[in-house]
């Protein structure tokens, strides 16, 4: 039997090879090691900190929802408000970024003149400059115009300004790959340039829009420095849990509960739209 099996692998083509049993077991071992931290979060979510101290790696014997309930009902740190802030900032920023960058990209991709060529370079600059350079002068600017506590709208515009280059880059490439005859056909059908964009081009951008939205959306939801340094009194989920955990630094049950709650929305989104997330995040950063 062993002989037969060997015979088969030998004749398989290289690319379609199957792993040997040992390699496959090794892979599973690596998977287990990589998943341990996630496992720890999940099992300890349902324990109290005392139980965690005594049996940190075992399955919970008594399911305790104390820490989760505490996090959800914490009167000093309203997690629902954090969710709302993060959601508003993320969705607002993503939508604005997609809209504005696709419009800029349409101009750059379809107008061949000196201005559009300049704009291309101008927006490329934003991809190369580390954002850390911006915080101090931007803080000054916001204080200067009295918007340091401008709240969610200010954060939305900041995120838009900082992701728009990426969107322009992806959308420009995509629009250039679209055949021009659909626009020409629309113009013969009686559409003006705005109708052509919103009714023909924008719907066709869907794959690029998915990439841009996922890429910038995840970045906005997870960002920590911007809300911390420029958010004024607005706390998002990241700065919120940072502050909340700061108060319970060694109360692991609550730490896990906070981490779990902070990550839950994005993890659910990721698990339901795995393909789009993975391709959006990887192809996005490869192209960007």
């Amino acid at each position: 039997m062993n002989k037969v099996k060997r015979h088969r692998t030998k004749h398989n083509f290289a690319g379609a090879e199957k792993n040997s049993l040992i390699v496959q077991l090794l892979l599973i071992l690596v998977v287990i090691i990589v998943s341990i931290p996630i496992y720890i979060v999940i099992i300890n979510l349902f324990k109290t900190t005392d139980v965690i101290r005594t049996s940190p790696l075992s399955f919970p014997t008594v399911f305790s929802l104390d820490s989760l309930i505490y996090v959800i009902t914490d009167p000093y740190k309203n997690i629902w408000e954090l969710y709302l802030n993060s959601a508003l900032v993320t969705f607002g920023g993503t939508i604005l970024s997609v809209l504005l960058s696709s419009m800029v990209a349409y101009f750059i991709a379809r107008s061949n003149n000196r201005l559009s060529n300049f704009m291309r370079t101008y927006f490329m600059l934003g991809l190369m400059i580390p954002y850390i350079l911006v915080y101090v002068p931007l803080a000054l600017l916001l204080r200067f115009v009295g918007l340091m506590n401008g709240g969610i709208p200010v954060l939305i515009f900041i995120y838009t300004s900082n992701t728009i280059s990426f969107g322009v880059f992806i959308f420009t490439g995509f629009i250039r790959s679209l055949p021009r005859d659909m626009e020409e056909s629309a113009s013969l059908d009686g559409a003006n340039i705005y109708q052509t964009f919103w009714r023909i081009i924008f719907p066709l951008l869907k794959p690029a829009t998915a990439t841009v939205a996922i890429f910038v959306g995840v970045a906005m939801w997870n960002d920590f420095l911007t809300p911390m340094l420029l958010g004024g009194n607005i706390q998002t989920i990241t700065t919120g849990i940072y502050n909340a955990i700061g108060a319970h630094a060694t109360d692991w049950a609550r730490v896990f509960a906070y981490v779990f709650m902070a990550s839950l929305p994005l993890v659910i989104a990721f698990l339901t739209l795995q393909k789009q997330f993975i391709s959006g995040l990887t192809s996005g950063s490869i192209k960007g």
Partner: protein
Amino acid sequence: MAKVTLHNIMKVYPAVDRGEKPAGKKNRSEDFVAVRDFNLEVSDNEFIVFVGPSGCGKSTTLRMIAGLEEITEGEFYIDDELVNDVAPKDRNIAMVFQNYALYPHMTVYNNMAFSLKLRKEKKEVIDQKVRSSAELLDITELLHRKPKTLSGGQRQRVAIGRAIVRDPKVFLMDEPLSNLDTKLRNQMRAEIIKLRERIQTTFIYVTHDQIEAMTLGDRIVVMNNGQIQQIGTPQEVFDDPSNLFVAGFIGTPQMNFFNDEKLLLNEGKYYITLFDQNIELPQRKQEILKARNQEETDVVVGIRPPHITISDNGTLAELDIIEMMGSELHLHLNVDGKDIIVVTPTTATDLSTLHKHQQVKFSFHPELIHIFDKEIKTNLFSL
């Protein structure tokens, strides 16, 4: 329906071409003249076909008519109104694109309704127009589908449908059948002829396929190198090609050309040299040449393959290749190293009497020969 007039139209792509190049043109270091001296009057309901090899300027001309390409010089009128600077959307022109250019995110219904919606027509009017056009093209059952799910032939119909719902003044078609396979192409060609009878519109149709041009057009505009070579009915273009290019381009197999011949004038009669003989031209042709006081000159003589017959007497040749095409035979004859193609109906020939490398004799009627000036390449019989 409308009259279309093009007067001295010219299209020049500038030397510094930083932007996109027009399809098929290489980047050039100097101004590139795509179309020049284009004069044409298309009357109401006429079906005009622009035909020519790729890069001859036919599509560029069509795109100038559509308004997709700027007219460098000249005037373009629709119904006596100068529309050079009218935007495509205001010209009331419909166009079927080579790749159909259907909007992929809209259903067939919405593709067809799009232009009407933009014109803010009433819902019922839109619905009625879309449905009647769909019926005309037999695509009613496709109305709710997306273009992606359609076959090539169906997409083609939808593209036509999208154009006809609007009752355009002028109906443009840019190589609409070139993406279809041969069988479907023949079928769609027939459908376009039928369609044309049912809708009253001026058609301008671009193709590189001379069969489409001959079968569809009321008149054909043959183009080459950005210039009109001849405008005429299919019959005129076939029978009286105005120059060597048209003679060679129209008709398959190609006209046989004999390059190093002479037109001779002897005692008031014109002769041509061909196969070491002097052949006297028939009376009608004599008169045309006389009227122009044509002098002796170097000429190219052309004879269409079906106008040559294998006969018992005539010029001797060797039979090189026999191509059986079904209803007709293509015979390749060799006369002194020169290849001549003869087309003869299969029914009129006994195949068993023909063998490769056999000596045959062929003849032709002097009435059916064409003579072109070798220098300027024009047809000497053209008036």
